[in-house]
């Protein structure tokens, strides 16, 4: 199979969607320039015309609302926000309108057509950009009923989840990460979809389950490599979808390993990691040999200086350390508790 980068895979998904389905169009900021989207949208305007690949004024709110209206009128829009931070200006159309609309008027099967809107948001952080250009806000959206959220970590998923999102009755928030754009991997040249809501086991293991979201799934794999050298056998799950998320697969794994580290590139408090940890605690309580560990950003806005960024963003080292700590804990507490 061919190898593509993550950014190329996103671009290919767009190109195939635009080619295969006349209802698909792309709208948002930075579509006619590589500055905003890297190569992930490169030259789509030349290939498919600027009527279907629309670079817009700086009007996040109305542009997102327009995409929603177009979806309700039968198109399959992908509305693009080159940074998640900017998308905060579009919370009304996303939360009040799109997410609720699917319940109020959109329920497919009730004679209505669903809300086939895909919102694409990019996490674009680091590089000394500072607090307003670094936010990874996926947990806020994971909280919302009526909205699906996917966060691909590999080139194949970047393509397959985008195609699945467009095919879904929606609305779907598709979040990609600039840090992954240069990662490469095998991607089928054919159009294909990856089921929304299904996690992927990237590595089987028996001692501890590392659950990663987006970039952090890659870091979990790196951490598993480090741990392997120490004789620790880690299972790695790439969550891929945040809403719905694959509770069954995660629970089954942790029931087997008895230990879990959740690694997320968002903040800790009330983040995606909290949900996953809470659910594991509830579902596999009797099998847990140690508390679920969370590896996340600290609860502070993003710094700018390179040295501060290095301290701010956790990675494989922190994940491996968390896993080690769980194993070192042994099962002592467990026994104490049972005796109580």
């Amino acid at each position, binding site marked *: 199979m061919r190898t593509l980068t993550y950014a190329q895979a996103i671009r290919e998904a767009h190109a195939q969607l635009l080619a295969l389905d006349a209802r698909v*169009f792309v709208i948002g900021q930075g579509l006619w320039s590589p500055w905003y989207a890297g190569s992930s949208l490169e030259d789509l305007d030349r290939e498919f015309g600027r*009527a*279907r690949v*629309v670079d*817009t*004024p700086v*009007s996040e*709110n*109305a*542009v*997102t*609302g*327009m*995409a*929603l*209206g*177009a*979806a*309700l*009128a*039968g*198109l399959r*829009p992908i509305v693009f926000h080159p940074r998640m931070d900017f998308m905060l200006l579009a919370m*009304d*159309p996303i939360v*009040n*309108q799109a997410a*609720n*609309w*699917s*319940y*109020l*008027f959109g*329920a497919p*099967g*009730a004679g*209505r*057509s669903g809300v086939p809107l895909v919102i694409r948001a990019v996490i674009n952080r680091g590089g000394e950009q500072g607090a307003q250009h670094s936010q990874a806000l996926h947990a806020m959206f994971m909280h919302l*009923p*009526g909205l*699906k959220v996917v966060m691909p970590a590999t080139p194949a998923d970047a393509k397959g989840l985008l195609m699945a999102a467009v095919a879904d*009755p929606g609305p779907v928030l598709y979040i990609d990460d600039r840090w992954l754009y240069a990662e490469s991997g095998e991607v089928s040249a054919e159009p294909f979809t990856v*089921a*929304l*809501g*299904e996690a992927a086991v990237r590595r089987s293991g028996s001692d501890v389950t590392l659950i990663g979201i987006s970039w952090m799934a890659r870091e979990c794999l790196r951490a598993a490599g480090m741990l392997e050298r120490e004789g620790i056998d880690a299972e790695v799950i790439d969550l891929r979808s945040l*809403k*719905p998320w*694959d509770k069954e697969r995660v629970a089954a794994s942790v029931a087997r390993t008895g230990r879990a580290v959740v690694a997320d590139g968002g903040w800790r408090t009330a983040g995606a990691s909290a949900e996953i940890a809470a659910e594991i605690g509830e579902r596999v309580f009797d099998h847990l040999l140690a508390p679920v560990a969370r590896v996340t950003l600290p609860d502070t806005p993003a710094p700018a200086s390179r040295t501060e960024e290095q301290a701010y963003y956790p990675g494989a080292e922190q994940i491996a350390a968390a896993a080690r700590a769980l194993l070192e804990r042994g099962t002592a507490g467990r026994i104490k508790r049972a005796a109580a």
Partner: protein
Amino acid sequence: MRSETAWLVERWQTMTLIRRAEERIAEMVETGEVRCPCHLYIGQEAVAAGVCAALTTADTVWGGHRSHGHYLAKGGSLAGLFGEVLLKATGCAGGRGGSMHLAAPEVGIPGTVPIVAGTVSLAGGAAFAYKLRGEDTVAVALFGDGALEEGHVHESMNLAALYRLPLVLICENNLYASHLHWSERRVADNLYRAGEFHSVPGERVDGNDVVAVHAAAQTAVKRARSGDGPTLIECRTFRWRGHVGASFDLDVGVERRGELAEWLPRDPLRRVADELIERGVLDLERREQAINDRVNTAVEQARAAPQAEPEPYMERQEALCAR
């Protein structure tokens, strides 16, 4: 402009239907039978009736919290309206929304929602879709004077002008946004000029004159259909009841008696009726009776229908969010 009598009778019928249906809803609010918040349209009927008369079934209208009139004028089912305000499974939104959430996609009402100005950009997006598909369908956004205070409406106007979208913007200026008079919210009384900066032409009409509203809407719809882009129409009107609920002449915290006394004689419905009587139309009473019968039947139908129940909705919705 002189209209065909038959045409005018139809407008009168639409307006009467809205008036009678809403009077009925008002009663049901007062007795407590209707519990969801209802924002009555009484006094503004000429706007919906005039605008919708300029549209085909395929054209879409996008309303807000005060959309009973839009829904009925565009052809939404009466039973669906009563069902919805009573939160019945037979309501036009399946009893999932109530008065502030009406929909009838089959006649061009994709959904009305109570976030002020929430559907303006959506209407723009629908217009975008019509244009991209090469259809000559038009989208119409109906909103209040307060809605122009939401900045994204200005974004939408720019986008609509830039992309020459088949969009008509109807501002129903009833002078108030809840308890606040326009003069407490802005300096100038000039809403028809809201789009000027963005090259959206604007016009002001008497919103209580169905013929004038229709004429302006028709021009704007024609412009939209022929690819010349959006138009804004400010319709001057007045709501007779409170901002929400059935109360007649008082808003919570606001005395508007004096103003109402000026507006009551400008009753848009009375005006059409007088004109028709003058033209020798003799059967208005009979027609009114027929409308009353329709309203009664719809109410009874809605009453007899089952309440929207938790089970199907929770399952369906959780299924949407689950795998």
